C-alpha cells in the first residue's frame, strides 16, 4: 500500500510580512516550522502503514529549505520524501498549488491513499486537499476525525458535518483530510534520525513534470489575486448607555440586533 502525505512548511509565527508591490507574502528569511495540522496527517499515515504494510511518502511544494521538515518526517518514520521546488511554482494559489501537487503525485506513480492536513496556518483555506482529489479524479472525505477502519483495500472514516457525524467508506485510491487531534503525533526519534542521516530528499522541478504547460503553475496558473492586505479593524468602542432603564434597554436591544450580535 502506498500512502502520500502532503505537508507544508509555514512561517513559525503568524506575524507576517507582505510585499506591498505584489501582495505576495514574503517567506524568505523568516523562521519556518512544519504546518502543525500536517503532523496529524503524517501520524495517521504512519499508523495505517504500520497496520496494513506499505510505504509513506511525504510530498511538499515549496522552497528547497523544506528539507528540514522532510528530515523531521524521516525521524518520525516516513519512508520517502519529495520536494516539488521550482521558481515557476512560486505565488501559487489553491488551484495552482493543488495542480502542482497532483502532477507530483502522478509522477510518483499515484497513491492508494493521499492524506492532507485540515488546513495550513498560512494559506489557511482548507481547500488544497479536496482540490487535489478533483484534479486526480478521486473521491475524498474532509475533516476526518477518526479512522474507523483501514485495510489494504478501503478506508472507513468518521467526519463531523455541522450537527451531524457521518461515517463513510471509500475504496482506494482516495484522499482524506484529517482534523487536528485525530491522533497524537509521535515525536521525532533520535534513533530514526541517525538511521536516516544519509537518506536523500528528492527534489522534483518543473521540467520533471508530465504537464509542461507553464500557464498551469505558480502565479500565472492562479486565478485568484490578492489585491491588498490590511490589518483587521479593531472596534475599541466604549459607549455608556444613558437615560432611564427602559431607554437603556431599548438602546441595548438595538445595538445587539443592528450589530448582528444575536
Amino acid at each position, binding site marked *: 500500500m502506498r500512502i502520500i502525505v502532503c505537508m507544508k512548511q509555514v512561517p513559525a509565527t503568524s506575524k507576517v510580512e507582505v510585499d506591498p508591490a505584489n501582495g505576495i507574502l514574503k517567506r524568505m528569511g523568516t523562521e519556518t516550522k512544519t504546518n502543525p495540522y500536517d503532523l496529524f496527517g503524517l501520524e495517521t499515515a504512519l499508523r495505517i502503514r504500520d497496520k496494513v504494510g506499505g510505504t509513506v511518502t511525504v510530498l511538499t511544494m515549496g522552497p528547497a529549505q523544506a528539507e528540514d521538515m522532510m528530515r523531521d518526517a524521516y525521524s518520525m518514520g516516513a519512508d520517502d520524501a519529495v520536494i516539488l521546488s521550482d521558481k515557476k511554482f512560486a505565488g501559487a494559489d*489553491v488551484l495552482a498549488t493543488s495542480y502542482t501537487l497532483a502532477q507530483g503525485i502522478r509522477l510518483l506513480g499515484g497513491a492508494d491513499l493521499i492524506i492532507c492536513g485540515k488546513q495550513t496556518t498560512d494559506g489557511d483555506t482548507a481547500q488544497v486537499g479536496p482540490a487535489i*482529489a478533483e484534479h486526480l*479524479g478521486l*473521491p475524498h472525505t474532509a475533516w476526518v476525525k477518526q479512522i474507523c477502519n483501514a485495510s489494504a483495500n478501503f478506508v472507513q472514516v468518521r467526519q463531523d458535518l455541522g450537527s451531524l457525524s457521518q461515517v463513510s467508506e471509500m475504496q482506494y485510491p482516495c484522499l482524506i483530510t484529517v482534523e487536528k487531534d485525530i491522533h497524537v503525533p509521535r515525536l521525532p526519534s533520535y534513533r530514526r534520525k541517525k538511521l536516516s542521516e544519509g537518506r536523500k530528499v528528492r527534489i522534483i522541478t518543473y521540467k520533471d513534470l508530465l504537464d509542461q504547460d507553464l500557464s498551469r503553475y505558480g502565479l500565472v496558473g492562479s486565478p*485568484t489575486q490578492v*489585491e491588498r*492586505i490590511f490589518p483587521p479593524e479593531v472596534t475599541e468602542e*466604549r459607549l455608556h448607555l444613558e437615560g432611564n432603564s427602559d431607554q437603556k434597554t431599548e438602546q441595548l436591544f438595538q445595538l445587539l440586533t443592528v450589530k*448582528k*450580535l444575536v
Partner: protein
Amino acid sequence: MELLKFNQERCDLCRLCINKCPFQALSMEAKGIAVNEKCRMCGVCIKVCPQDAIRFEQKAGSANKKDWNDILIYAEQENGDIHPVVYELIGEARKLAGKVGYDVKVVIVGAEGTRENAAKLLPYGVKKVYVYEHPGFEGFKADCYTDAVADCIAAIQPSIVLIGATALGRSLAPRLSTRFHTGLTADCTKLDIKSNTDLVQIRPAFGGNIMAQIMITDARPQFATVRYRVMEPADKVADIKGSVELCDVTDDLARSRIKVVEVIPIHRTKSISEEEILVVAGRGVKTEKELDLIQQLANSLGGQLCYTRPMVEEGHGDTSRQIGLSGRTVKPKLIITCGVSGAIQFTAGMNGSECIVAIDRNPEALIFNIANYCIIDDFNNIIPGLIQKLQAWKEVR
C-alpha cells in the same frame, strides 16, 4: 466549454460514454470522440468509461465575462432542513445582485424531501431553485454532489457561486472551483461587487492577524465560501416571482465512490470556551429568582450561562462554567456580564471577547473600563425588558 480531455491511446471507442451522456454532448468523429457545447460537466462519461480514458481538463483561461451572469447559491441541507447560512447567502447575494442587475438563483442537492425544502426558499426573493433529488444523494458525498452542482453551473453559467463556509461547504467548493478551473476564496467575511461584475472578497488570513482582499478578475465563475453568522439573512419579499425547477438526475449522475455507512446527530454541548454568546452572573445576582432571570436571558440569546468565582464557590454553578484566571478563558462574539465587578482575575479570562456588555449598578465598577457597552443600572430593571424584546423580534423573523 472544452474542459473534457480524451486519452486517445486508452480509448477503445466502445461508445459507452456517448450512450450514457445525459445531454447528447458526445459524438464519434473522425479523430475519435468529440465534445460539443451541450456538455454540462456532470462527469457521467468519466464515471462510466471502462478504460479510464476521460478526465476533466482543468486549464486556466479567461472567460468572456458577458457569458457568465447572475449569482448561484448552493443550499446546504442539514438534518432534513435548509441550513440557516443559506438565508444569509441569499440576503448578501440580493444586495450584490442589485448593484449589477443580476438575479439570485439557488441549487439544492439531496435525497427525498429536497424539493419540499427548495420551495421554502422562494419567499426570500430568489429567481429559481434548481433541484437535484435522488436517493443516491442521501448523506454527503463530495464526488457526486460536485457532479450535480457542476451540472447546474454549466447549464446556467453564473458569474458568482456562493457556498456556506461550513464543513460540508468547504469540502464541496474546492472540487467545484477546480473543475471549472477558476478561483475560490475561503471563508469570506465581507463581499462587494464592482460594476464590471468582479467580486471583492475579503477574508481573514493568518489566524485573523491580517485581512486579505481577493479578486478573480479573469476566470468565471467566481467562487466564495462565506462564513456562517456574518451576513444579514434575507427578508421575505412581498410577491413571490421565483419558481422551483426539477432537474433530471440519472443514476449515473448520482453514483458515488463514497459509501455512507452511518449518519448520526451530535449531541455534544459546547464548552463555554467554544460558545459564541455568553451571559455571566456575578455576585450581584443574589436570589434563585434572579439567577433564573439570567438563565432566561442566556436562553433567549441562544447562549450559555457562566459565573464568576465567588458564585461557583457559593455553589450556584459548576466549575466548568467559571470564567477567569482560575477558571476558563473565553472569547465569544458577545458576552453580557450582570452584577460582575470586573476584578482583574475575572477579566483576564474574558477580555479577548469581541463585544462586552456590562450591567452593574456601581458606576465605579472596574468592569466598565473594559466593556464596549456600559449600563449603570440594576440588572433587574434591564433584563426582563430585554428578554421580551428579543422574544418579539425572534417571532417576526
